[in-house]
């Protein structure tokens, strides 16, 4: 189901390719990188508060990142935000976890106590304005199996890695799966829900293509992929789903109009000066796969 949009996009590519191949002179459709002027709006605070508790660890050490947004084509690195105060409260008994400013945009603690299915509150104060978010720490099932295949995926000749896990039947579940080949600059994210697959063995595949435009290369034996499966809340799923869809297909004819993605860190002092990013709490299972 989640793959449908991707297929629609690929069909267009395929049709165009077919049309191209049938015309005498060949090349008609093309993709090229262009110079474009886009508007720039004022910078906003970005709160990347991802409290991830890896199964089998204590989960004491946690990091929250603060930065500022910047113009879309600004090639320079992130603008870290220092001097903020950051704390997370365990709602059940009011225990506070203070995140220390590391003066590089990260705020850390080493005494966090994770509790599944419990709610927490994030409070960030920066530049005289306070941002507050509430979330629940969501559990995740174990990964059942990871394997590789050639058939399956979008292309029958390229290697893909498959992740299998059992979805709990008793509840509605939402997941984030993150794949990152170790040589890649950034990960690829997939959002998943059990709406059509409740209680079944769930599978997700990750396949890369040889693409000159984006400099992507297909998997070859020896490639190492880091895999992480997160249990997430429905509210965070909605956020991620929109974000992933817009990053992947934004602007194409068969995508919806890209819109502002609103996170859960609400500015209490000045609501119109909204913060970007999200306060999430997840349980996560991680594994690594080496292509044979």
């Amino acid at each position, binding site marked *: 189901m989640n793959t449908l949009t991707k297929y*629609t996009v690929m069909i267009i590519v*395929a049709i165009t390719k077919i049309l191209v191949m049938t015309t005498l002179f060949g090349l008609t459709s093309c993709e090229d990188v262009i110079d474009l002027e886009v508007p720039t709006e004022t910078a906003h605070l970005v709160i990347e508060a991802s409290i991830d508790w890896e199964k089998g660890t204590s989960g004491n050490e946690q990091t929250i990142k603060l930065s500022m947004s910047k113009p*879309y084509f600004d090639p320079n690195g992130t603008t870290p935000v220092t001097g903020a105060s950051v704390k997370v409260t365990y709602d059940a008994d009011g225990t506070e976890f203070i995140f220390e400013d590391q003066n590089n945009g990260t705020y850390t603690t080493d005494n966090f106590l994770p509790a599944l299915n419990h709610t927490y509150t994030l409070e960030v104060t920066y530049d005289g304005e306070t941002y507050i978010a509430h979330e629940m720490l969501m559990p995740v099932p174990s990964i059942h199996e990871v394997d590789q295949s050639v058939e399956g995926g979008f292309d029958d000749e390229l290697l893909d890695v498959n992740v299998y896990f059992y979805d709990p039947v008793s509840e509605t579940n939402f997941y984030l799966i993150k794949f990152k080949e170790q040589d890649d600059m950034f990960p690829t994210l997939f959002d998943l829900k059990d709406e059509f697959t409740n209680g079944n063995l769930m599978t997700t595949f990750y396949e890369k293509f040889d693409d000159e435009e984006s400099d992507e290369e297909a998997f070859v034996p020896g490639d190492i992929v880091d895999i992480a499966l997160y249990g997430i809340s429905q509210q965070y799923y909605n956020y991620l789903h929109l974000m992933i869809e817009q990053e992947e297909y934004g*602007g*194409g004819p068969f995508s919806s*109009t890209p819109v502002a993605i609103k996170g859960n860190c609400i500015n209490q002092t000045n609501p119109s000066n*909204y913060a970007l990013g999200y306060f999430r709490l997840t349980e996560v299972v991680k594994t690594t796969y080496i292509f044979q």
Partner: protein
Amino acid sequence: MCNSMRTILLTFILFTSLLSAQDSFTISGTLKDASNGETIFGASVYFKGTTIGMSSNEYGFYSLTAPEGEYTLVVTYMGYSDFSKEISLDTNQSFDIELFENTMELDEVVIVSEESERVNIGNPQMSVTKLNVSTIKQIPVVLGEVDLIKSIQLLPGVTSNGEGTGGFYVRGGAADQNLVLLDEAIIYNTSHLLGFFSVFNADAIKDVKLYKGGIPARFGGRVSSVLDVRQKDGNNKEFALTGGIGTISSRLTAEAPLFKQKGSFLLAGRTSYAHLLLKLAGEDNSASFYDLNLKTNYGLNANNKLFLSGYFGRDNFDFSGNFKSNYGNLSGNLRWNHIFNDKWFSNVSLIFSEYDYQVILDFDKLDWVSDIKNYNVKYDLKYFANERVSFDFGASIIYYDFNPGEVKPTSDDSAINYLKLDQKRAFETGVYFNSELKVTDILTVEYGGRYSGFSRMGGQTLNEYEDGRPIVYNEDLGIYEKGNVVGETAYKKSEGIKTFDNFEPRLALSFQFNGDASIKASYNKIAQYIHLLSNTTAVSPLDVWTPSGKFIQPQIANQYALGYFKTFDDSSLSLEIETYYKTVDNRIDYVDGSDLIGQNTIETQILNGESKAYGLEFLLRKTQGDFTGWLAYTLSKSEQRTLGGEAGGPGINNGNWYSTSYDRTHDLSITGAYKVNDKWTLSSNWAFQTGRPVTYPNGQYEYEGQSIAIYSERNANRLPNYHRLDISATYAPNRRPDAKWKGEWVFGIYNVYNRKNAASISFGQNKDTGVNEATRTAIFGIVPSVTYNFKF
């Protein structure tokens, strides 16, 4: 409501009794092409030296009434020899007429721009354009694939949503607001290959008429336009075979008389074959389409004629066996024309149409089907009261069956659970009345109305939401979320869930002066009860139709139009200037992050909005001579707004008006065909459009190790302007006049100056450098093509 119907009926009776007081007689009959027996629509039939005259109707029928006397009956139709005959009108009489083409060269190459395409100065009907298939065939198109939809997009007030996307957009209205009829049957999807081509095979089509405004009362159900496509009846004089071999597809059409020329048939097929060549070349992915058109008719006697038409079309996609999809339309129509007498013409139609699609995902091991079916019974009557007044009235009932989706696992180890979205049923009814009245020689009035009704039927269960709100605004997060379900109501099959009714007045006026100029004004109100669910920029074949009901209101449009019409140079040149203002209430819009795939509770994803559009259209058209063509320019605006309403909050896009994705400020097209000599005809068109409204990012931030784009206002930016030049040349080789086989070559070049028009611009991070980039996708660069057409 009932009162207004009564008023209309009363007016009708009044006019009839007033006008029938005169001592007159009527001559009526059918106009046909002498060479193939095709009925002729839109020919001028009149008594010489009088103001008594009319155009023949869709079935070639005419009826003239005048006081007793001697008259010269004249029939003119461009491309045909004039017909004239002295008659004594001393009794009511029936008289069929055959017209002869006025050229020795009976082939498509001859530029025959027909009378009926000319602007009709006196008739109050405005905002309408008729294209004959011979005109459509002259327009250069990509890969030489003659395309009706792309042809109408060159007219003022009509746009596309970019190359390679389906549908068309009329006067700032959405694609699902067009009523597309093929021999009266509703066509739900006009696209082949997602919109690269259209479903109409030009060899089977006689003509097409597009109503952009002043929509006659006999049409209803869609708020923006009516595209009335008529298939050929089939040659009833002799067997004929036509066909063509093109770059993408080939066509073959057979026509022949049946039952000693009492009837005839036409059978046309078209199939793409590019995918076969690609299979040979080792390409795993394929996309193909085919369609079949059928039409047959049988004249029981002079006053009764039966028609049967059918269409079946299919698209197939196969993506390395991992993804397969097919979709298409199926339609059939059985019609009975009955002429009661020289003044009463009637038609009854039984119509079926269906659109369905199937998607098979091998990886997810699922098989997904969805369809919409409708059964339609329609009765139309036309009464030619006398030379100054005629009436149309009739009734229609449509039964709809919506199957929004059924998902089946394709193997035991599939992760997918069986799912069937709620089947929906509805009845749509309409009764209408319309009269054209020549008040004076200057003023002609067309007035009428349609009373439409819609009953959403039970046989399904609907959610009950807290406070009756299926969608609510989350004040904290500033987003729209599903409402809380507090219960369910099961509706029995026999039970109605919700009914709607609307009275839709239609009015058109024409003030004619000097015989060659007129001013026309029109107003129409139209209700639309079914909606295409699509939150994407372009409509896709997988979009699903849904009926109005408990949660979705019918769309209601009001359109006002005013125009100036003039013909010059013995009617060979016409000028049409029109301005319009249109509002649509209850246009649904999709909240941020709406999820429509496999969605059983659409009401949780949408809000009730409105749209408005206004514009100025200019059309200069030359329909006769060696050079024919038109210049069309539109200046327009189309926007929509959706407030929070019951759901609370500011609404979509903060409740601000925003441009629809089919808003085009400027839209210019110049189309021309020039007949150089008997062998060569040259055609060209140039199109310019303001870029499509899009949403560009206005910032970025880092999240999860990636750069995430920030967007704000919907459609606040625009793609670069679109423009393109196409040319084509048609070559009909020398041949003996008595040769049976007639062939022609069509050479075309699409996008001659190879402009890389952005179909879309997407944003993302370069995988190597991590720097953000804007990537332009241009669908067609310069594309040459060759097509061979023949007639036997």
